[in-house]
């Protein structure tokens, strides 16, 4: 119960803190709006009937990823600047719980990007989002949130080890958008890049989401992709658990929890 309270208060605190930051609001509101317009122009001549679905999903996914990059990862550095990272780390509450709370707060808040891209598509292009397999879409959407959260935790842990978080989060933002197929299918990428793509949970989450809005998809194919996503995400969960043990020692050996 006490841990749930820590998780809940951290989530709400994170939402408050994130939303008041202009950069986060830009990622949350302006970014998906602009991306929806750009993707619409790019997909309009694709010949796909339900291309508006891809536009909304693509813009939403790009938005949620930007929020995760600039918030979940950047928050570690922000806490370091505020001098609060050392306080939350040395408090009796489990540091992992605080990190998870922060990421869940950001991830939930960043779902607004989907609403923005949906509204933008409707308002500017009279586009309608249509998910013929409602249950499959729901499962895909929840899986996508969880897989993104796991990746964000993985990044947040790694970034406690370094003070150069701004550099790294800028470095990974666009490659992940391309490699994980947020906008274009990963099939068009070179083979060696596809190997990287398939090792990242968002790739499978995006695949699953696409299937759920594509129309008639065989349940076995959908389930096969779902299991792959669960498997890859599971591997990341194990890595995150093991990584914390190493990081917990390393941050104190390297002294990276503070600015100096």
């Amino acid at each position, binding site marked *: 119960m006490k841990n749930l309270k820590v998780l809940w208060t951290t989530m709400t605190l994170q939402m408050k*803190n994130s939303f*008041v930051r202009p950069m986060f609001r830009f990622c949350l509101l302006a970014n998906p709006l602009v991306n929806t317009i750009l993707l619409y122009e790019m997909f309009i001549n694709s010949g796909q009937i339900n291309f508006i679905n891809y536009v909304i999903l693509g813009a939403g996914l790009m938005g949620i990823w930007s929020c995760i990059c600039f918030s979940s990862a950047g928050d570690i550095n922000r806490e370091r600047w*505020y001098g609060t990272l*050392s*306080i939350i780390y*040395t408090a*009796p*509450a489990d540091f992992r719980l605080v990190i998870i709370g922060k990421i869940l707060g950001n991830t939930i808040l960043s779902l607004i990007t989907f609403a923005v891209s949906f509204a933008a598509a409707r308002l500017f292009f009279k586009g309608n989002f249509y998910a013929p397999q409602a249950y499959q879409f729901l499962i895909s959407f929840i899986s996508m949130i969880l897989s993104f959260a796991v990746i964000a935790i993985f990044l947040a842990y790694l970034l406690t080890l370094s003070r150069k978080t701004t550099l790294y989060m800028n470095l990974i933002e666009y490659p992940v958008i391309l490699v994980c197929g947020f906008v274009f299918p990963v099939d068009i990428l070179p083979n060696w890049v596809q190997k990287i793509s398939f090792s990242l949970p968002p790739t499978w989450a995006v695949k699953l989401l696409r299937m759920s809005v594509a129309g008639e998809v065989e349940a076995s194919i959908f389930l096969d992709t779902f299991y792959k996503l669960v498997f890859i995400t599971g591997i990341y969960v194990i890595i995150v658990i093991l990584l914390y043990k190493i990081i917990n020692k390393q941050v104190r*050996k390297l002294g990276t929890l503070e600015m100096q």
Partner: protein
Amino acid sequence: MQNLIELKDLKREFVITKGWIKRKKEIVKAVDGISFEVKKGEIFGLLGQNGAGKTTIIKMLITLLAPSSGTCKVLGYNTYGEEKEFRDKINFIFGGEMGVYKRLSARDNLKYFANLYYMDEAKANKQIDKLLELVDLKNKADVLVETFSKGMVQRLQIARGLINDPEIIFMDEPTIGLDPLGAKILRNIIRKLKTDGKTIMLTTHYLYEADELCDRIAIINNGHLVALGTPQELRNIISGMNTIEIVLEKVTNETIDVIEKLESVRSVEKADTDKGIKLIIKYLEDADISGNILNSLSGLKILSFNQKELTLEDVYIKLVEASR
């Protein structure tokens, strides 16, 4: 009396990498074999220059840094490996404007930190009200911290550091940058905490503050312990000398020679100041030489006459300089 903090041959090294192509590793010894204990209920001062190792010691004690070697124990537990056993019983206050969320109100900040210490809501709310009153922020409790002055943020930091009613409080230069009133409030809080039986470890550059508050003081330099004792014990280390400072309109070298030859006088320094010529006379502690000095100065215009006792600052400067 029970030892709550125990340091034995404590060392902490940092590896610094230099260069782009040929990366060179350099090992900096921030703390190099420090040993001391802090007793329950004590206010223990850590004095030293910037970079002496004070903050590194505090960071190891609050479980933020791992020691490179040696013993570092708080409440009988190792600070690296057994930290979960005592983290709820300690807290720390660092000077400056860091350590709080500026986009939250003072109350919301304290509520959040109370949650991190697993405090139940009723107890936390009571403690928050008490602390806001203690640091004189009660009428600003629901105002966003970003609108606070530097001193107010620091006072909120103090409240945050006391949120879990800790047994041991570590304070790293807590009065730095505080206005005189804020510093006085903090000193009063420290005194009150002592009467409540709390143990406090304090670092400060204000030596009068350490002299006034601390039961015992450790002076460290370049990661080494230079001296340890009560303020009086530290004075005794270099005692035996007192100082008289006299400002004169003018003085001749002959007069200075006369003073230098007086029994018990060990040195006379002359300095030109805006107010006149200052003579700094060092003499043996028990000697009564004021009368003789005044006789030597007959006919000269004395602008001021000051008999100074040995201060902690004199002791500190002497010990640190001697340890170089």
